């Protein structure tokens, strides 16, 4: 009788520990999921800001495409211009692809700027970038 009671207690304890372990595993997964979403959100927000900053700087500079991107620390590649940026210990690559249309009245820079996070093949954010300035290029 005494032995039966001990076995039951042991079984009960084992079940409790198993339940606790299982719950802990599930909860941990949920926490990891939450953390991933949080990181994803931060990456998207930062990538968006970086692209906006780049476009605003381009529009404000009123310079030729080559001049602006070279002065702003971009390197010329086959696809266009690229620049590495680190924000909150996360590495992003800003990439601009586009063309410069020269007319009689002015110059139109037209293209797309994209921010890639840590070598991801898909950009975290990309958007159109355009800048028209009348006459010649700025200083």
């Amino acid at each position: 009788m005494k032995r039966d009671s001990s076995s039951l207690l042991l079984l009960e304890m084992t079940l409790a520990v198993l339940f606790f372990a299982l719950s802990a595993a599930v909860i941990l997964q949920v926490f990891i999921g939450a953390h991933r979403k949080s990181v994803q959100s931060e990456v998207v927000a930062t990538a968006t800001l970086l692209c906006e900053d780049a476009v605003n700087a381009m529009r404000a500079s009123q310079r030729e495409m080559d001049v602006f991107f070279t002065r702003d620390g971009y390197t010329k590649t086959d696809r266009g211009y690229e620049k590495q940026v680190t924000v909150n210990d996360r590495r992003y690559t800003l990439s601009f692809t586009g063309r410069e249309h020269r007319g009689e009245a002015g110059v139109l820079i037209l293209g797309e700027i994209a921010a890639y996070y840590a070598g991801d093949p898909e950009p975290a954010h990309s958007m159109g970038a355009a800048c028209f300035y009348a006459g010649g290029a700025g200083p």
Partner: protein
Amino acid sequence: MKKSKQSFKMGVGVSLLLIILVVISMTTLSVLALLSSVNDLKLTQKRQAYIKELALATVHYESALFTVNEANHAGDPRQAFYEGVAIDWQGDTAQLTSPFHDYMAVVGVVRVTDAGIERKSYEIANFAEWEADDSLDLFNGDFAFFTEGWPDDGFFEDIDE
């Protein structure tokens, strides 16, 4: 002996209760954290989409500026100079359609006359862009443009002023 056995059983019961409480609170916390993160991501993506659309509208506006500037400069406003924009003239207004996406930029172009003499100078009277199924303008306004010729005495001027 019997008393200690009872105490032991009670202790086990209390421990189990505590474990269950811990599990419940941790589950609640983790679910709340997940919900908060998902909500945050959704808001960020919404903002991202809006900024993308706004950037696209800006692209169209800059393209329209380029097109009309070129038209003014060449003295032939019936011709679209920028290859990326389709232009449909109807009297003194023109509709510019961009090939990039499903959006449309509408530009009203006004003929400028000076002391009864018609000048080949055109202005962007209004620029608006919206989603096809959205009544709210995404980007709208009156913009500065040349009215006094090009290029020596040209200057930017808001047409409302």
